[in-house]
């Protein structure tokens, strides 16, 4: 490298005006609105779950749906904050209480399924459609979130990717819970975790690239 003075002169010479990022809360709100709208569209297209009326009377169901959505929202807010250099790493913990709520409903539902899947219920058929729903929700959400977070050029790419993946998982599961009867089966768990893991891995690899400047 040349002298620091030379570098400063070069950087000064190539300076172009930049558009400032809007505040992270605003960007998070935008993405949450987008994800929620996508959930609504999916619910309209694919129809609400057959046992919705019964589920609405079950507090555990409410807890789970609310837990999933709030995990998604909190993780989104955390992702937009933690990807900025001067925000605390503690943002990563924000989704934790909501995730506990979500998992509690999840575990509760799992136990319920174990005991109470009625004889002859179309579990396998619904599982296949459920996979579709989750992919249909996760892929566009991940794409948009990824593009938005990339603009932050995060200095902590791994944390950002991880928390972003959690946001997508929360919203995708919200869609799934509204549309499908089969809740909390092993398949759903895998389908929720797999894209998250892939995004995390890809994010870890790709997220560094924009910051390779000068390294």
């Amino acid at each position, binding site marked *: 490298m040349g002298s620091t003075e030379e570098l400063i002169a070069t950087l000064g010479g190539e300076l172009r*005006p*930049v*558009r*400032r990022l809007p505040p992270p809360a605003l960007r998070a709100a935008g993405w949450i609105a987008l994800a929620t709208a996508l959930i609504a569209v999916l619910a309209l297209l694919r129809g609400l779950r057959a046992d919705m009326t019964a589920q609405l009377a079950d507090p555990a169901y409410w807890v789970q749906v609310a837990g999933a959505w709030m995990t998604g929202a909190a993780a989104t807010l955390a992702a937009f904050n933690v990807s900025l250099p001067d925000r605390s790493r503690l943002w990563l913990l924000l989704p934790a209480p909501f995730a506990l709520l979500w998992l509690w409903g999840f575990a509760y539902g799992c136990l319920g399924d174990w005991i109470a899947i009625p004889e002859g219920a179309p579990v396998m058929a619904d599982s296949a459609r459920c996979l579709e729903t989750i992919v249909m929700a996760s892929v566009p959400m991940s794409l948009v979130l990824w593009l938005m977070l990339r603009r932050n050029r995060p200095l902590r790419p791994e944390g950002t990717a991880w928390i972003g993946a959690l946001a997508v998982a929360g919203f995708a599961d919200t869609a799934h819970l509204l549309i499908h009867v089969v809740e909390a089966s092993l398949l759903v768990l895998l389908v929720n975790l797999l894209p998250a893991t892939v995004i995390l891995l890809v994010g870890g690899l790709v997220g560094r690239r924009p910051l390779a400047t000068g390294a």
Partner: protein
Amino acid sequence: MPPQDADRRTSASAAAAGAPGSSATAPQSDWSALMALSQEGDRAAYVSLLQSVTPYLRALARRGGVDGAEIEDAVQDVLLTLHAIRHTYDPRRPFGPWLLAIARHRMADRLRRRGRLLARETALGEEHVTFAADETNNPERAESARRLRAAISALPAGQRQAVELLRLKELSLKEAAARSGQTETALKVAMHRAIKRLRRLLGEG
């Protein structure tokens, strides 16, 4: 340079000695304003900002355990990252923590990289030193030379003298005869016998 710039530089150096969050408040508000102007494309403000943060970054690097020769590289790393992500700065927030976060990340990366290098590399000792001359880098040849020297010293005195004068010192037959006090013919015979004997000693004949 306008006087206020010089003042800013001085206060930046002074701030560098203290904790960035506390004593650096005055230059930080300047920095914040300069950064806001830089985001709008004001080159003079940008150059002034970068010059003003440089002493602070040097002090940070020194405190962070970056070695003397690497300090400038570390500072330049931070400046380049600052340049790349300058759109992420929000002028309503203090500039110091933003810059400090970038600096800490980049310097931690640098120290990690150095740690990895140190873990993989071995310091060079005398045995690793090489020379431009090809033969010094070939241990097999060195071994043959050692064997040849041993074989020569095992020759009878007359033959050894012939080899030393004619081959190692590369004298002419006449010069060798003059120096050794032997006749040229005697030297030739001794040389001939020496070669035969060396071949035998070195297992080539």
